[in-house]
């Protein structure tokens, strides 16, 4: 029997199991979307080559456990027929995750699925000092947990108020979870931008459309991770457009390649070199 190159298999999404010659195949899934026409093939492969089930990972991934070493090529070929390819493990850019943002979520401010697909095209599998995870959320509710990832963003909106039609109903004050909206003793509305978290609740609730979106964009977090030494990502910049968001991804990865030590997570690289150093190089 030929010698098994485990490193190569792992890079190609096949993860060695504790059972000899058994592998869990990690598939490449982008932004959590699996098409209906791909599902029967997944089921078929899991039945025929695995143990009749798939495992859903915590990061929108799909894995087929108990694939035998001898079947690896056949499994790859079968899945390729519906456009499913093996994912990656190891020190490189991992599955890009995203919530469904403004495609369907009432809170969604931006299309983060699109951002995720583009980020995947640009960076997926890129070799780095350690694993690197992207996560994009459509609003501050942060369902895709961007702060737990090496690079993440949330959709944000800057609200603007025109009181011409305001009925002093206080609904916006009532929904604002940051106390950024108050009424003074003269019943005049006061908006404090310093307290505003850019969630857009006031815009959605106002019955007379006094609150409107002045600017929509992304707030960026970097250096987050869970694992053995959990740390939440730090806010790098507030309200950037798509173009700037991608420029920041480029620069962040360049910084990591330039300064990161082998086996060092990105957050640790920033901690070692200092937040100011990182900021001065990417902003």
């Amino acid at each position: 029997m030929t010698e098994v190159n485990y490193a190569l298999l792992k890079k190609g999404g096949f993860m060695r199991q504790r059972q000899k010659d058994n592998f869990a195949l990690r598939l490449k899934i982008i932004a959590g979307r699996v098409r209906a026409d791909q599902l029967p093939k997944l089921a078929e492969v899991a039945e025929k080559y695995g143990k009749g089930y798939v495992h859903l990972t915590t990061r929108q991934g799909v894995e087929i456990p108990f694939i035998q070493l001898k079947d690896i090529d056949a499994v790859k070929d079968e899945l390729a027929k519906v456009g499913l390819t093996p994912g990656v493990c190891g020190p490189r850019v991992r599955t890009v995750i995203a919530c469904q943002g403004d495609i369907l979520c009432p809170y969604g401010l931006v299309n983060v699925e699109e951002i995720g697909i583009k980020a995947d095209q640009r960076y997926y599998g890129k070799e780095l000092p350690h694993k690197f995870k992207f996560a994009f959320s459509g609003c501050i509710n942060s369902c895709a947990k961007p702060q737990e990832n090496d690079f993440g963003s949330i959709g944000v909106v800057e609200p603007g108020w025109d009181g011409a039609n305001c009925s002093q109903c206080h609904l916006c004050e009532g929904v604002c979870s940051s106390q950024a909206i108050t009424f003074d003793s003269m019943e005049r509305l006061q908006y404090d931008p310093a307290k505003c978290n850019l969630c857009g609740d006031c815009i959605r609730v106002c019955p007379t459309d006094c609150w409107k979106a002045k600017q929509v964009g992304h707030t960026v977090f970097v250096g987050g991770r869970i694992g053995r030494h959990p740390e939440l990502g730090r806010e790098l910049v507030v309200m950037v457009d798509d173009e700037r968001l991608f420029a920041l991804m480029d620069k962040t990865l360049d910084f990591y390649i330039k300064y990161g030590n082998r086996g060092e997570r990105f957050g640790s690289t920033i901690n070692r070199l200092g937040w100011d150093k990182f900021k001065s190089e990417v902003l």
Partner: protein
Amino acid sequence: MDTLDLRGEVCPYNFVKTKLALEELETGQILEVILDAGEPIQNVPRSVKDDGHKIIEVKKLPDGAFSLKIEKS
């Protein structure tokens, strides 16, 4: 005018009940709903607006809840 007191009712049932009550009405008729502050007030008015109805009056009640008058579209 019908009044629906939804204090204590959780999301999304408060909205579902509002929606059902509005379905009973003719266009232009008014429904009053009373909602707790917090999540209900974040969700129900927005959903009512999304369905095309008009919120014509809102009053904050002494217990912190909100009374909404909704005109059916």
